[in-house]
């Protein structure tokens, strides 16, 4: 059984805590992505599951068995590395069979397993090649085959696609999903690329500052982020944030106002809150017909347009003195909004526009703690509860 559990796992280096009291329960057969920015502790977490690093505190279970102090080879795991990490002086066959030969399997069994593994990753006929005669994608397949032959209960993959070029990376994503279906084993996959995590995994574990922020299926992380960090990390481009205050009438930000009854969303007047809205949930006046519950109009001027082909990103300035600057991102960007519009929209730069937000897709966060308060702010109390249905997701 390939279920993996971390209980109160902490990893402290001399002066930094890389992983802080992590609790994680991964089910058998699940494809799970550990995702987070550089240095968030996701790789350390994986190394502790692999047994390459020992936790300072806490326990690790694999298949119900406590493995905290077991060496990697006794954990029933296999690992695929970012640097691919083939042995450069061995051919493909020797690379794939290295672990089996160490364990003194008989020749026929080794051949059988190597053949099966190389079939799965489509390496037929390349067994006598040396690593330096292969392309990056082929080398990564060898690395995966090397993991497969061991029949592990858990596959650990540490950014295995990070060193491949963009096209190959997209292709290998599909391959990995196929592989997961075929092998039906647990895959734990570390990446800093949220798109990779969204497309492949059953569940995403978002990690920041050594702590688990949220573990949920991709769309739940997208539609109901547990806190500001997850909201900002998942989704590209990032969610818009507007800092403001709760008044009797609802949300009051510098340029954005949303009226609601504070009692309905469990806040009280005077609370500091942050409003979040994804670019695709910002609409121009012309398009607002499509949404049931628009907010009041917000006056804005368009700044820069970024045509992406299937959509156009429009940077909106909400006040005269606003600038579109990356530096403002940390300050809640109260003066600007990013909007996604249809590619055939007639919108131009430096144009005055009125926009509305889709109330059903608004997110309210506690500015202080970052915790999510409410997903979806409808006009009536009856609709405010259907916020959790991601039915209207339009991507």
């Amino acid at each position, binding site marked *: 059984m390939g279920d993996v559990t971390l209980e109160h796992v902490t990893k402290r280096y001399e002066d930094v805590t890389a992983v802080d009291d992590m609790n994680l329960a991964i089910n058998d057969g699940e494809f799970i992505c550990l995702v987070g920015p550089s240095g968030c502790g996701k790789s350390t977490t994986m190394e502790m599951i692999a047994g390459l690093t020992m936790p300072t505190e806490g326990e690790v279970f694999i298949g119900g068995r406590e493995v905290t102090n077991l060496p990697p080879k006794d954990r029933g*795991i296999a690992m695929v590395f970012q640097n691919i990490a083939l042995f450069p002086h061995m051919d493909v066959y020797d690379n794939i069979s290295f672990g089996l030969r160490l364990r003194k399997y008989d020749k026929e069994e080794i051949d059988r397993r190597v053949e099966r593994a190389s079939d799965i990753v489509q390496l037929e006929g390349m067994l006598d090649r040396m690593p330096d005669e292969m392309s990056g994608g082929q080398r990564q397949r060898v690395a995966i085959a090397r993991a497969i032959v061991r029949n592990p209960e858990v596959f650990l993959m540490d950014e295995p696609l990070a060193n491949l070029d963009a096209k190959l990376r997209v292709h290998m994503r599909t391959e990995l999903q196929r592989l997961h279906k075929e092998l039906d084993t647990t895959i734990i996959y570390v990446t800093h690329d949220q798109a990779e995590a969204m497309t492949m995994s059953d569940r995403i574990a978002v990690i920041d500052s050594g702590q688990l922020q949220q573990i949920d299926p991709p769309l739940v992380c997208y539609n109901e982020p547990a806190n500001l960090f997850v909201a900002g990390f998942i989704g590209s481009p990032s969610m818009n944030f507007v800092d403001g205050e709760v008044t009797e009438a609802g949300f009051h930000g510098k340029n954005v106002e949303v009226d609601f009854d504070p009692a309905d969303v469990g806040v009280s007047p005077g609370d500091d809150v942050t409003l979040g809205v994804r670019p695709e949930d910002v609409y121009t006046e012309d398009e607002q017909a499509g949404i049931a519950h628009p907010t009041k109009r917000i006056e804005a001027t368009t700044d820069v347009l970024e045509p992406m082909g299937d959509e156009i990103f429009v940077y909106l300035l909400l006040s005269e003195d606003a600038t579109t600057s990356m530096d403002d991102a940390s300050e809640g960007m109260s003066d600007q909004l990013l909007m996604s519009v249809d590619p055939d929209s007639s919108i131009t730069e430096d144009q005055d526009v009125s926009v509305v937000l889709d109330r059903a897709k608004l997110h309210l966060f506690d500015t202080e703690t970052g915790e999510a308060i409410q997903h979806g702010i409808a006009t009536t109390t009856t609709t405010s509860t259907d916020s959790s249905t991601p039915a209207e997701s339009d991507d």
Partner: protein
Amino acid sequence: MSVADDLRELSLGRAAVYVVLLLVGAFYLAPLESGLMTAIKTQDAFFSSTPFVPPFGDGFTLEPWYEAWAQMQGPLSDFSGALYNSAFVAIPATVLSGLIGSVAAYGLTNLKWRGQAGVLMLFVAGMFVPYQSVLVPLTRFWTIVGLQNYLAAVPFLQSRVGLIELVVTHTAYGIPICTILFRSYYANFDESMLEAARIDGATFTRIYRRIIFPLSKPMFAVVLIYQFTQVWNDFLFALVLVSSPTNEVATIALNKLQGSMVQQYNVQMAAAFIAALPTLLVYVLFGEQFAEGVAGES
């Protein structure tokens, strides 16, 4: 200033650079060149001619080489002579310190533990210890050990006890530089490659034998070449450890020859080339590796 002027100045400048570099090259080669020319001149010829000019006519002779060879080495067939003794010391000492250095570097690089820096510092400092500061205890140590008593059963070795002492001594003093050179190489190994081997169940010894060692070939070339040169060229250890005249190594024999043939510069030069021949050969064939070893000293 016109473009043409610029260009002219540029090429003039470059020409000057080449001239300077060539002159410096000539300066570096001059002692060797005039040595070589002198070694193929007769006594009369080198006294009467300019040192770096090749001999002509009667002035040419290979006699100095025969004489130098006879003095330093003698026939190769009887397994004695200075060149043979030097090889007897240099080859085992080089191989041993190379192997030991490689293993030590693995333990100090690819296995992580606290306090490596301290141990490493001892290795690094060990490269720089002036041999004078260990000479007295070293001779005392070998006197107390009395190696010849243990070798009584093997006359071949017993008669070469000084050389065996040299092998051990050179091995011990070669370990620091060999370790440091290998360590610099191993530190560049992809760590996840070794982790992959660990996950596959390879023990630390296995990882060394199956992965590190086979991948060390280029560095072994560097270490062996550099270390061979160092041991072959050593003079001081041989001077204090070798007492028997039959155990003289090439540098000692060369020094002795120089003292006994004061005015015979042609023989001296020929002898110097003979003594330097293995290292010159190694340098010409494997200059790249030697340079890398030299760079490792810094």
